[in-house]
């Protein structure tokens, strides 16, 4: 777990969230949320509360979270003003 910035420092900043694939259809490609520091799990819950139609998708553990280009677990803390990307299952070929 890493925590680089305090909530106080970034008070008023917004969390930047990006969605891909079917999630982008449901939620748009980008979203800004007024949130203090939170874990990935808390961020998922906040998005689910605000967007009930996307609840099952955003809470699905098949959807992975990514911070700074690295897959992040549910307990990973994100500072306000940070960016989180959500990836539905991928498929190439």
């Amino acid at each position: 777990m890493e925590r680089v910035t305090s909530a106080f420092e970034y008070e008023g900043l917004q969390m930047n969230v990006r969605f891909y694939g079917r999630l982008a259809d449901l939620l748009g490609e980008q979203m800004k949320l007024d949130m203090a520091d939170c874990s990935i799990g808390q961020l998922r819950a906040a998005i689910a509360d605000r967007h009930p139609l996307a609840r099952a998708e955003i809470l699905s553990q098949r959807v992975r979270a990514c911070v700074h280009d690295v897959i992040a677990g549910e307990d990973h803390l994100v500072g306000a003003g940070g960016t989180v990307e959500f990836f539905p299952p991928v498929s190439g070929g």
Partner: protein
Amino acid sequence: MWRARLCLEPFDPAAALAAFAKQIDAGTGAVVTFTGLARGANRNGLAVETLFLQHHARLTQRSLDEIAAAGAERFNVAGIDLIHRAGAIAPGEAIVWVAAAAAHRRAAFEAADYLMDRLKTEALFWKREDGADGSTWVEPTDDDHRERARWS
């Protein structure tokens, strides 16, 4: 030697093979290639007008690099090359092309097979089929995951 390229425009698999063949060394006795084409119909038989592959600005190329490097590491091959399309793809166009060169055929076949199984399940793309009946996002099938698991 391995290479992986993300390609945003149509590409010519024959030209890719010709370029690859020029780079292989004298000890190579086998080159296996696979070309994946966009189908004009989906799993339910409905017409697909466009296949759209969304990619990530940085991580898609990284995933292709990782898969190509793993193939080169795992098999006794002299070279691996792969090209993967992103964006809007018309039926009949190549989506993916993989090539493996080796001293003997078995390693080349296996490497190409391995690369495709990993690309189907792990390459960082989101695939959508667009047709007259609407759009559908496509995820790996159970078969795709079973094929991938053979290499675990």
